[in-house]
């Protein structure tokens, strides 16, 4: 029996599908999934003043950070290295400078300006056990990878109750079963393990001083990325890795995993072994 639950968390709609007998066990698993998302949001949200991430960004240092925060920051730093800086968790100030300084629902669709200035990325981050220290003027945005990480962890939890799919606004992971996932109106991918993530400028965009802005920052310029891609969908071994690779591919990296590119002129390209 397919059970479905939707709720709002981490600034997006979360959808959880669980293929399990209806009953208390499945309900408990879904409750646990929901509370886990709330827990991850309390750790990694940059929009909650009392989150661990906000404290780290405010103080430049946090001692006794939760294992999840340490893990995500480590993942993000590894991703920065593996993608030659295309994925970078230190884009916080650039995202804020571009106008994404509050939850997206509250970002005005159009504001008069002045045009935002680029912000520097690539700042230093040091981790020593449960202590994280940021370089001078460095702040972290774990939005994408944090969501991917949360999706992976919740999928692992839910898998104890049965085959499942967890989708947090496009970052999704499956455990067990076969799940048809719509990528575009025409393309559906059936995923039996791993994760999918989509990065693009077709959503979460706004205008400042007549300039189109979106949330995908190119760390090399400190501005929203230019290019002829509208979105990139990547399939990887986990949602967190898919999120990293989707962002890197959007910024021009060549990725060797299955992916779908949608270009500004409306073409859809299947690559990385998809046919």
């Amino acid at each position, binding site marked *: 029996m397919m059970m479905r639950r939707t709720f709002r968390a981490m600034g997006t709609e979360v*959808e959880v*599908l669980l293929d399990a007998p209806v009953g208390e066990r499945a309900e408990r698993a879904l409750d646990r999934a929901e509370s886990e998302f709330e827990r991850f949001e309390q750790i990694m949200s940059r929009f909650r003043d009392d989150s661990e991430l906000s404290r780290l960004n405010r103080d430049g240092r946090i001692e006794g950070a939760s294992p999840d925060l340490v893990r995500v920051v480590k993942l993000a730093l590894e991703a920065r290295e593996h993608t030659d800086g295309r994925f970078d968790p230190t884009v916080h100030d650039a995202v804020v400078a571009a106008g994404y300084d509050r939850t997206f629902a509250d970002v005005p669709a159009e504001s008069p300006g002045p045009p935002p200035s680029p912000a520097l990325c690539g700042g230093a981050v040091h981790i020593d056990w449960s202590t994280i220290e940021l370089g001078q003027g460095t702040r972290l945005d774990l939005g994408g990878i944090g969501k991917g990480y949360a999706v992976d962890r919740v999928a692992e939890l839910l898998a104890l109750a049965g085959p499942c799919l967890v989708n947090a606004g*496009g970052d999704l992971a499956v455990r067990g079963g076969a799940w*048809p996932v719509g990528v575009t109106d025409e393309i559906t991918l059936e995923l039996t393990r791993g994760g*999918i993530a989509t990065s693009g400028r077709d959503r979460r965009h706004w205008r400042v001083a007549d300039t189109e802005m979106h949330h995908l920052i190119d760390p090399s310029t400190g501005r929203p990325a230019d290019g002829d891609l509208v979105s990139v969908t990547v399939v990887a071994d986990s949602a967190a890795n898919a999120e990293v690779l989707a962002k890197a591919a959007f910024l021009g990296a060549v990725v060797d995993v299955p992916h779908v590119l949608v270009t500004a002129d409306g073409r859809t390209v299947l690559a990385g072994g998809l046919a």
Partner: protein
Amino acid sequence: MTDSSHRLYAVVIAVVVFFVSWAAVAAKPWATAKPDPRLAALAQREQRLRADAKLVQQVVDQRLAAYQVALKTRKAQIATAQARSLQVAQSTAAPAVRVVNLPPLTITRTS
């Protein structure tokens, strides 16, 4: 020898005999030596501590043996779990995906 010499010898011998007798009497060889109660208490305490130490050592040995057995069992369990998770990781490392012509259960979109 003169009488006076004899007397002198007699006096000296008498004095020597007196002091030897006095020393012998002062030594009270007839009295049995009483043991010092503090020494006795210390000896008792030492014996008790030795007995306690022996008991504690027995308990420690038993617990160490039990711990070593439990540790061995736990290590075996961990090795089995690691082997299993490695198998799972190897079997799930690569994503499995294909294009299908089915109605989607959900969609992915820009996150």
